[in-house]
């Protein structure tokens, strides 16, 4: 049933966007490979939705060019861009049935009713909605509405899918399920997909590559594993990972990181007055006060399930350690913490740049 279509590349070439005096997108350069699943990840106001809307044609770029395939579409009307989009609110037409909603893109393109009917059934079957074609959107659950929106997007077999936080209105359990379906469908159809989200789990699980945006600037564009293991700067390091990466303030002197008078050996060299040491909670382990690289007092312990999160206080910084699930400690107990070799990152705290 699922027919593959050769994917189409998408590129942003020095795209800028300002609303009046406010610059929301700084010179964005981005090449999306044919058939790729690219996630734009960022907090609200990071410019990710603006980038998507510029690609869709709902917003026009202040500067720069946008290309879909071999076409420059910067000034092309949305309807000639051969894209389809899934909105956060699903944007289902409340006065049309599920079938009419799914068939709408074909109806406005004057496809004849017989062909349309066939296409609607096919698209509905792909998202398991065949039984609900005569219902109205208000009679559907959140997950079903989501599927209708997907079916309406795939019915035209566009060159590019755009998705604007499509899963954020679902509850947590359904979200996990829909994520898997989405990934499967995109893979089966092979259509280039640009997906906007603020949820790092979605980004890590769905994407071939993730583009992290902050304040209109592209911070890093890489595969999920690379982003997690090799963050380009302090922002990316702290944005990705849950619980987030631990940060300890200090200074880099030679190949030692100085926290007050304690020295920690790090695998890089340099001299930076104001630096931060970054280490992920799972790369820390708790030892006795004497053995640890740093020592501090236990602030709280939280049993999560398969592990226990221990929050320690080291002078004014907090540090979270992922410990075994049977670990127990009293609040206020003095313990040490040691770090896994090679998993320490150092960043310049003035500009956030990674020191390698």
């Amino acid at each position: 049933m699922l027919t593959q279509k050769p994917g189409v590349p998408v590129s942003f070439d020095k795209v800028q966007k300002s609303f009046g005096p406010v610059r929301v997108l700084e010179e964005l350069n981005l090449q999306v490979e044919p058939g790729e699943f690219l996630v734009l990840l960022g907090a609200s106001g990071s410019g990710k939705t603006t980038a998507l809307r510029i690609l869709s044609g709902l917003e026009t770029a202040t500067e720069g060019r946008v290309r879909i395939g071999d076409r420059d579409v910067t000034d092309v009307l949305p309807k000639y861009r051969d894209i389809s989009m899934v909105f956060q609110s699903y944007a289902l037409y409340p006065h049309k049935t599920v079938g009419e909603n799914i068939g709408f893109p074909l109806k406005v393109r004057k496809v004849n009713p017989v062909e349309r009917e066939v296409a609607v059934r096919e698209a509905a079957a792909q998202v398991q909605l065949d039984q609900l074609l005569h219902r109205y959107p208000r009679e559907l659950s959140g997950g079903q509405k989501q599927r209708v929106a997907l079916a309406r997007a795939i019915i035209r077999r566009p060159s590019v899918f755009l998705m604007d936080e499509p899963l954020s209105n679902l509850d947590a359990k359904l979200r996990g399920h829909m994520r898997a379906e989405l990934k499967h469908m995109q893979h089966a159809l092979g259509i280039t997909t640009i997906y906007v989200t603020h949820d790092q789990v979605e980004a890590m699980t769905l994407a071939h590559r993730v583009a992290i945006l902050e304040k209109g600037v592209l911070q890093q564009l890489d595969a999920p594993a690379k982003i997690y293991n090799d963050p380009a700067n302090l922002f990316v390091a702290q944005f990705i990972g849950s619980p987030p990466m631990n940060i300890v303030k200090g200074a880099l002197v030679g190949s030692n990181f100085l926290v007050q008078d304690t020295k920690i050996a790090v695998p890089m060299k340099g001299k930076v007055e104001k630096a931060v040491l970054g280490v992920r909670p799972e790369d820390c382990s708790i030892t006795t006060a004497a053995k640890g690289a740093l020592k501090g007092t236990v602030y709280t312990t939280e049993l999560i399930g398969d592990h226990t999160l221990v929050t320690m206080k080291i002078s004014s910084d907090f540090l979270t350690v992922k410990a075994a699930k049977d670990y127990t400690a009293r609040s206020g107990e003095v313990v040490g913490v040691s770090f896994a070799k090679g998993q320490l990152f150092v960043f310049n705290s003035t500009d956030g740049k990674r020191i390698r």
Partner: protein
Amino acid sequence: MSHSSDINQPGETPAGLSARQSWAEWIDRHSRTFFIAPAVSLILIFAIFPTFYSIVFALSRVKFTATGLRFRFVWFDNFISEFTGAEQGHFLGRLEGLSVLGWLFAVVVFAAVLWWLYRSAKNGSTWVGMIGRLISASMALFVTYLLASTLFSGNQWGTLLTTLFYVVVGCSLQFIIGTALAFLCSQPIFGKSFFRVLFFIPLMITPLGVGYAFKMVLDITKGPFQPLWDWIGWQNWAWSTDAWAARFFVILGDSWQWIPFIFIIMLAALENVPRDHVEAAQVDGASSIQIFREITWPQIVPVAVTVILIRMIEAFKIVDLPNIMTSGGPGIATESMTLHSYFLWRANDMGSSAAVAYLLLILSVIVCSSFFNYVVLGQLRKAHR
């Protein structure tokens, strides 16, 4: 099912579309014009153009001739005659001899207006704002002068003050009664939906019908209250010959028609106040009047002032009721400015008729925009803060 392959040029009609499709495409491209042009041109031709055209009438002596109209330009003669000339008594009232009471009233209001101007100048306002305030203030002072030398000096007033009387007294009365009824209907009472339907109906009845109905009901000799008039001993008195009684009954008819408007919108606003605010206050032990004053009223003030503004705008146009109930009489006691202009038109004095109509426009714009700027905007800003 791909539709992209046949589209090459950005922004242009794709090749290969049939003539009909490209026609539809052309309409779509110019849709921004097609959407708004019909409405705007209708207004330009039948509202804006006549408004300008009216200036020519107001500044001319107009004569009917065999070939059509003949205009003779007379500058502001028509306006001057309304203010200082032969028509002064009709338009402004008889302005002779200021009584002590008139003096007193004038002095008090003058002082108040000057104080208000001084305050707003001190608090710093823009040039445009200050000019607006000056216009409002001079309008207020002019009306004060008219009131002092007519009402407070025992002289008859003219159509300008009659119109303002309908607007100010009518609107206040209608607002108070309408809101009170809406408050009652928002309480837990039996038969709510019956009352709200019934109270709404007068608004929809043609003003003409309202006028005749009230004329009939208030008839001294044949009306339903004839026994009552008899009992009071008024069988030889007719309200239509007493200026204040006639004005009162015109306002009564007007209120019968317009209270429903205030009522229905205030009721909708009252019921839009979040239930939990009211319930929280009930749990705290507030009485329903306290709840209204402390919780409900502050939330419906923006609607209230807007409703008053709308009512005011419409009230300036009052014509049907006084025309039917009293024909503007006794004398000119109930004649509104629209009626004044209509009578002048019937007497073939088109220049003066247009001048009075223009003065009505100016009056209503100044009063309504003053109300909008000093009251409505302030309340809306407070509500959105």
